[in-house]
């Protein structure tokens, strides 16, 4: 019988994609092109990086900045390690094992992570306990009686990782909600931000930079009465924030990319950052 067969499977030997040979993106120019800098990575970084790139390209006509869609922090680390991209955009610090991959981390900005709500939500503050109850599924409406619509992310999302570390009890509630498949999950920042911005009475986690750069109809809720302004982020009174970094391989690092990093630390670059809710780092 033609279709009647059983496949004796020892199909694949588990192995990392990293064991494969370095490759190049089929539709992107290689890093060896001095005129083109490919920067890809976390969706958190995309908006501000594109603004910075646009300003940089005005001053440096010979250099083209190519910034595709989100491939995540892990994707960026992998792509930089493989030499698939020049600059990686990450929204969390490198882990120890990632530092050993021969890449360099260049932090350039800090931004407040917010518990955001759709602009039609009347409330402007939320407690950490209420947040836990919402993700446990025991709190389902806003105080005006309208339903709370949760827009969640995959487990490894950097914003939710910060919340899990900063808010006691939230990690368990979030993990349990994943087990129960309680929410709609979005696997990149832009999808999640779009859903949060477009869904009335929605709640989610984003940051002030993405709200500004992606022009989201989202308002930042005070957390336990503390607003996510720059001072409180810097002095740590507001507990939720993350650092945005570039990563790259130092050997053969192209000049154009180096010049872009330099531009970011210029006053023009810092101004762009500050105007969009970021805190430039020296």
């Amino acid at each position, binding site marked *: 019988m033609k279709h009647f067969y059983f496949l004796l499977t020892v199909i694949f030997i588990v192995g990392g994609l990293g064991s494969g040979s370095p490759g190049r993106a089929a539709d992107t120019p290689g890093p060896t092109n001095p005129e083109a800098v490919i920067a890809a990575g976390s969706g958190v970084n995309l908006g501000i990086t594109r603004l910075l790139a646009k300003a940089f390209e005005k001053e440096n006509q010979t250099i083209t900045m190519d910034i595709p869609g*989100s491939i995540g922090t892990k*994707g960026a680390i992998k792509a930089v390690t493989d030499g698939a991209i020049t600059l990686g955009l990450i929204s969390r610090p490198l882990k120890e094992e990632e530092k050993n991959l021969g890449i360099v981390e260049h932090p350039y900005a800090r931004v407040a992570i917010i518990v955001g709500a759709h602009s039609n939500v009347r409330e402007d503050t939320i407690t950490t306990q209420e947040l836990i109850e919402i993700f446990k599924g025991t709190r389902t409406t806003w105080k005006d009686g309208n339903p709370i619509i949760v827009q969640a992310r995959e487990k490894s999302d950097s914003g939710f990782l910060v919340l899990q570390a900063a808010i006691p009890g939230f990690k368990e509630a979030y993990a349990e909600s994943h087990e129960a498949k309680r929410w709609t999950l979005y696997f990149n920042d832009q999808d999640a931000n779009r859903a949060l911005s477009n869904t009335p009475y929605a709640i989610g986690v984003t940051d002030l930079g993405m709200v500004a750069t992606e022009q989201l109809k989202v308002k930042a809720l005070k957390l336990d009465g503390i607003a996510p302004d720059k001072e409180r982020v810097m002095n740590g009174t507001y507990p939720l924030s993350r650092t945005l970094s570039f990563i790259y391989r130092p050997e053969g690092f192209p000049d154009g990319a180096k010049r872009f990093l330099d531009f970011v630390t210029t006053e023009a670059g810092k101004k762009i950052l500050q105007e969009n809710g970021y805190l430039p780092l020296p």
Partner: protein
Amino acid sequence: MIRRDKQISISRELAKKLLPVSLIICLVISFLIPGAYSYLEFNRLKNETSLYAKQLSDSIRQLAASSPGLWKYQATKYSEIIESFVPNKGIFSIAVLDDQSNPINQFSHREKTQGLFSQFAIQGDPASILFNNRKIGEIWIHLAAGSFLVKALVIFILCLVMGGSLSMLVYRMPLMGVKSLEQQLLDYQNSLEELVIQRTTALQETTEKALQLAEARRHDQEELLEAKANLEQRVEERTKELQDQVLAKEKALAELATAQSSLLELSRAAGMAEVATGVLHNVGNVLNSVNVSCNLIMNQVRESRTGNIAKVAGLIAESGADLGRFLTEDPRGRQIPAYLASLSPVLLEEQQLILRETEALQQRIAHIKEIVTMQQSYGRVSGVLETIAPEQLMEDTLKLSAGALVRHEISVERQYRDVPPITVDKHKVLQILLNLINNAKYACAGLEKEKIITLRIFCSGPDRLSMQVSDNGRGIPSENLTRVFQHGFTTRKSGHGFGLHSGAIAAKGLGGSLIAYSDGLGLGATFTLDLPIFSGDSA
């Protein structure tokens, strides 16, 4: 034996025809059904696998589209998508490949690698990951086949058993039926033969028995004839005996009637004797008084001084004319006036005594006359009805017994009610009552307490009255209450046992009854003579 071989060959021929049929049934059920199930289930699972791959490719495509040139660097996110996609789908493994078929991401469900058939999987069609109508990768999904294989194996085994069993049934049942029929036919044939033999034997035996029976019947008939003759003779003899017995019975009945008549006469005579005895007794008593009076008169006469008067008269006669001198001078003559003077009151007293005794004698003789007259009154021939007051009947009876009652120191109480006169054969009633009073007298004999006989007369119903004699004597035990009326029954040494018997018969003849009652020994007895106010003598 030839027929049996033929029958066995029929079952063999049937077995030859049934064998291929049963084998076909076995094969169809054992392999076709499991095969069909396996084919359908496999295709279903294969389609399901392809569907899963399509669904997963859609999810990954949306993520990859944001950065198609670098899509394969989102392996971590694909892992999370796959992790949320896998549960409850029976997925064995998932592989995400790029356009060069290099693995980007892979998943192996480790839990499904345990157990029987866990290494088997079903591969569906790959699903392409498209971007801008260009294939940038594909997804392969394998579903775990263990559960499917186990089910298929179980179904195969069940169908094999069922097919085998059914084919055996198809093969064996008709064969067994035919063999059973063959055996039954043989048995039936054998039984028929045996039956014929048995019937023949039985018929012969029956014939012999019939002959014997006929002989026996002929013999019996002769015996019957003989018995009939004997019986007729016996009947004749018996008839004669019965006729003799009837004659004897009639004779006995006649004798019995005569005896009964004699008994009645005897009873009547006995009653009359009792009456006569009473009369004589009373007369005797009166005669005693008469005798006493006579003796008194004789003694008075014998001792009378009337003789002395004769002597005085002789002395006077001797004096003749010289009576005066004699009376005055003679010493004997001078005593005569004084003597006569003293004799006068004595003679007067004697006269009075004799006169008194003579009157008493006259009264006693009159008493005797009265007794005799009464006896004559009751002694006439019975059967004549007379109207008489019941009290007089009772008192006349009492008079006949008065002497004996006095002698036995028995007091009599009378409880008479006002009752109308009764028309009856008073002689029979007198006999009955006299017998009852005599019995009461004897019953009281020997009592240390006061002896009392109570006589009662009262109406016992319309046109009926009762005359009752009660005593407080020795009483009658209950077992003797009916026996006292039997002929010959008596408790007295001098009794003849037909007083109450004849009394009861007489009472019945008067249209009445005689009833005895006693509370038991020592508690007295009561006899009640119940009579119609007007009765005819039916005796």
